[in-house]
């Protein structure tokens, strides 16, 4: 009897959920990663090759170059992941009305992340930043908030 009453008043959970950590999305995370990619690309291009025969300077050069490349790889991949999360989780089919070029923008931005990994291209790193700025503007206009775009560096 008590068990029966307990089960009647146990009130099982009815989920009024969202699958993600509700509503916490911001293109800023992709922008920070893309900025690191741009910065590493600039640093790699500016690095001076030491004179031949200077083993110590060569070791330092290779070490620095390797670090820059590793960070560029990692941050380009991170930028891509952050973009994919926004694309597939935040944006819903109804957002296509406000942002008809949504799929093309994200597809190209994700491809730019790959290009930045493979190449040492200032042009592609800058295009990635521009794509993220476009996404930032659309994202916040869909959320109905006026959030100014900025970069950390």
């Amino acid at each position, binding site marked *: 009897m008590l068990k029966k*009453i307990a089960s*009647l*008043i*146990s*009130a*099982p*959970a*009815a*989920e*009024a*959920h*969202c*699958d*993600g950590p*509700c*509503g916490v999305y911001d293109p800023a995370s992709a922008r920070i990663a893309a900025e690191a990619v741009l910065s590493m690309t600039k640093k790699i291009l500016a690095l001076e090759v030491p004179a031949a025969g200077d083993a110590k300077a060569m070791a330092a050069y290779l070490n620095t170059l390797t670090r820059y490349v590793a960070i560029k790889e990692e941050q380009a991949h991170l930028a891509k992941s952050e973009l994919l999360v926004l694309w597939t989780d935040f944006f*819903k*089919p*109804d957002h296509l009305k406000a942002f008809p070029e949504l799929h093309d923008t994200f597809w190209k931005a994700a491809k730019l992340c790959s290009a930045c990994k493979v190449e040492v291209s200032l042009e592609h790193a800058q295009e990635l930043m521009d794509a993220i700025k476009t996404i930032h503007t659309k994202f916040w206009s869909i*959320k109905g908030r006026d959030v100014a775009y900025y970069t950390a560096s």
Partner: protein
Amino acid sequence: MLRSLLGRVVETTRRGRTLVRPRVVWGLARGLRLYRVTGESMLPSYVDGELVWVDRRAYRGARPVAGDVVLARHPYRVDVLLLKRVALVAADGSCELRGDNPQASTDSRSFGRVPLERILGRVSGSLD
């Protein structure tokens, strides 16, 4: 959690006896069942933690109507019950479900229409 839930369902009389609140008995006697809302996708209509009455017999002889808040079985997750509002009822009775708070809702926009047999009942109100 359990204690706060219990606090809404039972009360203590002046003589110190613990009884199920009359309005709970009344609801149960009418065939309604209590469910606890979790999450924020039904804001501002239903808040996280709220207890609601569900009429599980509501759709035995009738179909859901757009605007109804329903308890539904998730279309492909086992043992997950959903609380959402019906946005549209298709000709075959399947329902397009939406959260009242679309920014924080996973609903038919991602999992598609929910078949009629997975719509378990209609929310008839909150337990005050």
